[in-house]
């Protein structure tokens, strides 16, 4: 979301992405991968393990966390099992999935049952409120763990069994309360016999008022327990008093559509809430609500628009183990991105991590609507990087490289390549930028040596993958493709090798690698070989290759090459083997070419991943070494239409199909030619005029 439209969370559509199809979609989202390292446009789909302006801001936050607190990205991210999708760049969600923090699930209902057993109660068909992640409501804490804690506290206190039973029942019925008028009236009469129960009852009444939204009553109720001799009541009421104050402070600050009106925040109550929560944190540094209370401080700073304090809270959070935080790192990163990054005025940012993310965003092009960061404003930030001078130096070089488009100046700033590794994220970023600068300066050989060396210095799978990608692109563009596949090649990444084989390699290399491969890789290579054999005009090779490398299983992508033709339709075609033999003998045969068109059409090969070439600045985007002109359906039809020798049924069918290339929306679905509507109309009339009795003339009603 922090890419094209920073202020609007990824609006509506990725229509263009969808239209373009995706050569290597790894999820429903249809990510379209950019196989390169030198990138300046952000997208969710493409992120690199170095500090790049093209990274989603959340990825750069994550990388900067490694820079400032040494927290390498999860190795799981480098262990993809999709051979046609790159490991670098990776999509944001892959990072999230790799780093999902999963706490061992606890069976709170079973725990509750254990607590209820001595009271002759059980959970029965207990109904609970269901909330999604991030669904904001104070009722979230009205849950089983809270109920369990209450019932456990009563047990410790030696309350009479009858009173405990009544109170436990009350606590359970409170579980569904969330909003005015909800919940059941507390039965208090029966408790008169047990005065020890009074404080617990007061707590329940205050909690009910809190969840119902009666904050005044909740305030008084919890305050009356602040000095309770019962430790759980004392601690819990002190914590909850802070939460009540927070709720009071924001009451009325969110409009009916949930939009924050900062001027409606009750600042003095917000201050009081901060004070109350901080007092709790001091009194209970190991308290059971520590993580929650500390987390609520962020909410209060956000309500008060106190960006500095909010930034400082994040700095604190980054340094904590999981049990001291109220959210996972992934959630904290999202929150940082959503609640701080886009709201803090740029002259207020002082934290190096925050400045780093903002500075990198300012170097994006060409979409970003933010002001570019002028040189003098960047230099003024230097004082905030006293503890991170290396990061400042990197940002300085990035400013030259991306901002000023001056790779030579960037090179002059960047440190020399270290002699030994492994490299942390900052050093790896520096050396990546050095390599990119050499490439942009046209120093291809030095760049090549640099990428080779960087590969040896890489710390982890992601860094290695990126170094291999850079090296492979360099070799590809230096016409040294064979070196990628040489026995001593350091490039062992399957996705990178497959990309080059599928889009660049000639037939000999393709066959050689095919002999050495297995599984999904072999399937992809065989698909590429047979596809190009047929559609680049090597028909005899198709016959021999499919015999040598077959079979072509029906449940694989290779099934298209086992096409059985069409003997029942109005235009008859032999199976693909026969067709290829026919074409090998007679490449210009009208009927055979029309049938090849039918094979392409009925198998949707216009949308085959191989039908589109990678962009010129991506891996696999250099000139293709597989010889031959690509087959175009429309050109085949045009040739038959233009051939006076063609049989009547062939010409009629060619006219029909040529017209149909433009159904139903007027777009050319057969190739990239621009054909004027008059020409399409003429084909339509020619069919009607010359072959009026043909099946094809009679079944064509429109042209487009």
């Amino acid at each position, binding site marked *: 979301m922090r890419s*094209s*439209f920073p*202020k*609007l*969370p*990824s*609006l*509506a*559509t*990725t*229509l*263009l*992405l*969808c*239209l373009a*199809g995706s050569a290597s979609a790894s*999820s*429903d*989202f*249809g990510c379209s991968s950019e196989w390169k390292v030198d990138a300046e446009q952000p997208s969710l789909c493409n992120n690199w393990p170095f500090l790049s302006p093209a990274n989603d801001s959340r990825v750069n936050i994550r990388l900067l966390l490694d820079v400032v607190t040494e927290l390498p990205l999860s190795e799981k991210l480098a262990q993809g099992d999709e051979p046609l999708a790159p490991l670098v760049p990776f999509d944001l*969600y*892959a990072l*999230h*999935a790799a780093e*999902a923090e*999963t706490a061992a699930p606890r069976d709170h209902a079973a725990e509750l049952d254990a607590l209820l057993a001595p009271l002759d109660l059980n959970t029965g068909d207990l109904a609970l*409120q*269901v*909330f*999604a*992640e*991030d*669904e*904001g*409501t104070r009722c979230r804490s009205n849950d089983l763990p809270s109920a369990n804690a209450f019932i456990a506290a009563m047990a410790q206190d030696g309350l009479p069994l009858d009173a405990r039973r009544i109170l436990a029942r009350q606590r359970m019925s409170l579980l569904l309360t*969330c*909003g005015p008028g909800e919940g059941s009236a507390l039965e208090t009469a029966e408790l008169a016999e047990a005065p020890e129960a009074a404080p617990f009852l007061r707590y329940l009444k205050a909690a009910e008022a809190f969840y119902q939204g009666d904050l005044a009553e909740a305030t008084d109720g919890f305050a009356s327990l602040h000095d309770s001799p019962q430790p759980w009541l004392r601690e819990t009421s002190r914590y909850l008093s802070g939460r009540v104050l927070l709720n009071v402070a924001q009451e009325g600050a*969110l*409009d*009916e*559509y*949930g*939009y924050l009106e900062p001027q409606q925040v009750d600042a003095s109550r917000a201050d009081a809430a901060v004070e109350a929560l901080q007092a709790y944190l001091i009194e209970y540094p190991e308290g059971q609500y520590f993580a929650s209370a500390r987390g609520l401080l962020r909410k209060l700073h956000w309500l008060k628009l106190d960006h500095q304090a909010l930034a400082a809270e994040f700095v604190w959070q980054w340094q904590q183990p999981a049990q001291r935080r109220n959210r996972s790192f*992934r959630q904290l990163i999202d929150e940082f991105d959503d609640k701080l990054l886009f709201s803090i005025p740029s002259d207020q940012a002082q934290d190096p991590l925050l400045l780093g993310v903002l500075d990198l965003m300012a170097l994006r092009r*060409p*979409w970003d609507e933010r002001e570019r960061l002028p040189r003098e404003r960047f230099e003024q930030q230097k004082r905030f990087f006293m503890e991170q001078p290396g990061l400042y130096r990197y940002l300085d070089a990035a400013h030259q490289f991306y901002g000023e488009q001056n790779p030579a100046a960037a090179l002059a700033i960047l440190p020399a390549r270290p002699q030994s590794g492994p490299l942390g994220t900052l050093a790896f970023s520096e050396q990546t930028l050095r390599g990119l600068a050499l490439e942009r300066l046209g120093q291809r050989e030095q760049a090549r040596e640099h990428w080779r060396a960087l590969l040896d210095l890489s710390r982890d799978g992601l860094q290695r993958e990126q170094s291999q990608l850079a090296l492979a692109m360099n070799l590809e563009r230096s016409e040294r493709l064979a070196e990628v596949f040489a026995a001593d090649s350091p490039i062992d990444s399957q996705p990178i090798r497959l990309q080059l084989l599928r889009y660049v390699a000639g037939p000999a290399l393709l066959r050689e690698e095919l002999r050495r491969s297995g599984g999904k890789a072999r399937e992809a290579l065989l698909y590429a070989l047979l596809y190009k054999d047929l559609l680049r005009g090597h028909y005899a090779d198709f016959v021999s290759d499919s015999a040598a490398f077959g079979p072509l299983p029906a449940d694989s992508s290779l099934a298209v090459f086992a096409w059985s033709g069409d003997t029942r339709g109005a235009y008859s075609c032999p199976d693909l083997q026969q067709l290829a033999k026919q074409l090998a003998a007679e490449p210009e045969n009208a009927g055979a070419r029309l049938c090849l068109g039918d094979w392409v059409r009925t198998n949707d090969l216009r*949308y085959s991943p191989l039908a589109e070439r990678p962009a010129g600045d991506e891996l696999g985007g250099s000139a293709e070494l597989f010889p031959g002109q690509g087959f175009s359906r429309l050109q085949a039809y045009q040739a038959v239409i233009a051939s006076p020798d063609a049989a009547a049924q062939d010409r009629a069918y060619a006219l029909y199909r040529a017209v149909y290339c433009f159904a*139903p*929306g*007027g*777009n050319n*679905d057969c190739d990239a030619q621009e054909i004027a509507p008059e020409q399409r109309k003429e084909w339509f009339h020619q069919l009607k005029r010359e072959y009026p009795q043909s099946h094809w003339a009679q079944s064509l009603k429109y042209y487009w």
Partner: protein
Amino acid sequence: MKRLAWLLLMVPWGLCAAPVDAGDHQAFWLWAGVKPQPVLTQAHTLYLLQGQIDPHGIEGRGRLHAQGPAAGPLRAELWLVYRAHTLDWPDEIVPQLLARVERWRRHGNQVRGIQIDFDVGTRHLARYAGFLEQLRQRLPADCGLSITGLLDWGSNGDPLVLNRMGETLDEVVVQTYQGRHSIPDQQRYLPRVAQLRLPFRIGLVQGGQWQAPKELESSPWFRGYVVFLLNP
């Protein structure tokens, strides 16, 4: 740069189209981060963004992130909108959606149902249709199901695959914009939209461009417009 290119493309067609004035409409999308505007008081129908289903979860399965306002009394009838970035939904998601519907209803609102916003290319429409059928089966009868649709759906695949989803869907809202802008050659696609045989609305973007072809508004299935509000 890119912005300029869009504008240039829009010129010839823009001459006959009129800017979209939210004040002329009664149905709106309210997305996260978009400041509520006074025009909302005239809303008959509100499409409220309530969350996003991302492949964040365990083993990359879907996880629902709530967004948008918490339940409270609103005057308009409501569709609760969820953006989906994956169709791989673990079992807990539907109960989470329904719990939120219930919370809005407890505040006295008329909740029509749930709208799914999923950007899917034409080629994967059939799979999406299967997903929606299953989702429909898990929703109670009083919870409607709406989806957003893309203008180009059907332009190169099965033209009217949506018409076969009439039993699954209560409506489809076809978006005529991308990002903050109307799609320049939207006119090209609209005749096909008019062939829809299930209740449909047209999604416009505030300040975008729109000119209704006659056959569209006269379709018995046309249910009006929804305007995507933007921050100024």
